[in-house]
């Protein structure tokens, strides 16, 4: 099996005619954890949504491949079945569909008909992963995200990540709204996934999550593209000094995607 690979080149993305991503590029391989950092309004979440195929975002030019296949040509569900996962910042609430039924449907969607996961195996795995994330078993039978607190939704996103075992995961501000204990638990879950068969792209504007998940590469995003890349030490410097020094260094006045 070849190691997973996500390659994005010169990606331009618009929402309602407004260009948000302006020439974004990155390559994520299995075994690597990348962090994308940057102030608000620089296009980080747009990147996550566009790669997953969110209906509101339009890719106007550029390329994205997943294990060599044209990602942008795939339907949303095909991208997921190919092994891409997005832990969303604002996951939908779906009434009447229990968490367990939903996750089981998602697991079976990747499997051939007749080769569905057995109920026993599913339950054991679900119990195990919920324990890792310190989640109450009651969440299995609650309707998908309905009435979940912000933190509960985030844990539920990570639960899905652990259950579905994607090849490349994008975590969109998974740390926002989590207290430090929850953050540690979520980080532990993600660290459990670390292997050569798993790559991860963490989007955040705080360094604190990176204290628990050590990134291999750190990228800073401004004006809809990556303006600076480095190792873990870059995140530490950002935490200590903020973003102003980068703006100065690059002569950027307004870091947002602007009008």
């Amino acid at each position, binding site marked *: 099996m070849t190691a997973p690979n996500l390659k994005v080149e010169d990606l331009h993305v618009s929402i309602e005619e407004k260009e948000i991503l302006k020439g974004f590029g990155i390559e994520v391989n299995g075994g690597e954890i990348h962090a994308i950092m940057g102030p608000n309004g620089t296009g980080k979440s747009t990147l996550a949504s566009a790669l997953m*195929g969110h209906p509101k975002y339009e890719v106007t030019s550029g390329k994205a491949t997943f294990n060599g296949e044209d990602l942008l040509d795939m339907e*949303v569900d095909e991208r*997921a079945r190919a092994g891409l*996962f997005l832990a969303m910042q604002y*996951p939908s609430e*779906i009434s*009447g569909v229990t968490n367990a039924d939903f996750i089981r449907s998602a697991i079976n*969607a990747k499997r051939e008909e007749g080769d569905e996961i057995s109920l026993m195996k599913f339950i054991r795995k679900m119990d195990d992963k919920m324990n890792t994330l310190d989640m109450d078993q009651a969440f299995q039978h609650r309707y998908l995200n309905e009435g979940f607190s912000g933190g509960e939704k985030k844990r539920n996103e990570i639960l899905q990540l652990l259950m579905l075992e994607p090849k490349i995961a994008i975590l969109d501000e998974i740390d926002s709204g989590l207290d430090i204990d929850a953050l540690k638990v979520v980080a532990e879950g993600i660290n459990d996934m670390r292997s050569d068969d798993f790559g991860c792209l963490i989007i955040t504007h705080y360094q604190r999550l990176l204290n628990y998940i050590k990134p291999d590469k750190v990228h800073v995003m401004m004006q809809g593209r990556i303006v600076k890349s480095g190792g873990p030490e870059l995140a530490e410097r950002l935490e200590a000094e903020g973003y102003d020094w980068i703006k100065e260094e690059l002569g950027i006045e307004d870091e947002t995607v602007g009008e």
Partner: protein
Amino acid sequence: MSVDTKLPFDQEYVTNFSKDRQEPEWLTNLRVSSLERAEAIDLPKPDKTNITKWNFSSFDHEKATSSDTTYDALSEKVRELVGKEENANTILVQENGATVFARTEEDLQNQGVIFTDIHTAVQEHSDLVEKYFMSEAVTADENRLTALHAALLNGGTFIYVPKNVEVKVPLQAIYVQKGAAGLFNHVLIVAEANSSVTYIENYASENASETVANIVAEVYAADGATVNFGAVDNFSEEVTTYVNRRAQVMGRDAKVYWSLGQMNDGNTVSDNTTYLVGEGSYADTKTVSIGRGKQTQNFTTLIKHYGKNSDGQILKHGVMKDSATAIFNGISKIEHGATKSNGEQTERVLMLSEKARGDANPILLIDEDDVTAGHAASVGKIDPLQMFYLMSRGISRKEAERLIIHGFLGPVVNEIPIESVKEQLIEVIERKVY
């Protein structure tokens, strides 16, 4: 303009039909007077649906003979509705109004519970049936269809639960309409003080040709009584249905719960009315429906509050596809004097096709100051963000839609009190949606 509804049935026909069935005189008289009246009075007028051109006159009306057959002699379709034979202990199956399979428990009989077909009931419990039959909840002179119902009655069930008796097992009835036979089915449930009972019915067609189903159910609940009424209607598209299910909740603190799966494929007009007369009485009405093909349907749920502290809840969920049309009327009417009453309702319609039409009309009519009431209504498509979310986990578009639709209908489906009927409703939903 109204279509000519001259029926090929006269006074002599109706009299002979009644005599053949050895009915008591009061019923023969009611049939005859109702037939006469039917010609003079109008069709019901469901709000926002014109039914004057619907077929209410073309159907066969023959006397089918009852025969208690074995489980194995039932058709496969009926056996599916019945469930496993060993679990079918309190059940009545009728084909074109004639009983073909009936089981009840000795225990119930010893407690004085009556669970029998309407034909037997009018012979063996004539006074009791006469006291309630089309007396208050539904009357024969309301409209042409209730009059025809009384005149041509040819099937149904009578349930009587004496004071303080709690019937633990659900009582189930299955009514199958075959060929061109018109079904004039009447269900009468009387729950005396502090009794409780769960009744669940299935309507189905087999090899139907153009015909009519004219269904009336009456529930009478005395002080402290609780009646659970579940139904799955599944007539095929050749059948025009008038279904009128009403409860007269006259007892103090009496409760009636409706869970109705309205899954007919033909044109349907449904009236589900609950009269909350008793102080502290309660009604909970939950209905789900699916419209498909070219059918037109009208679902009106009305709760009328007369008693103080009465509480009425209406929940209606509908899914519309193809070029089907449906009107969902929810009416909470609080009469003067019904102080401290509460009426709440929700109507939600999910549209799956551009050509389908669905209207949700929540109506609050309040003639009393000291009450609480609320309503919510929505008509919309499937949320694209919900679809994105489900699909982002690898679930196909079709499966994601299926999950959302099942979730949408779940609040009612999950209330169905018999597991086999619930599963069967889920199956009908699957079949209708895809």
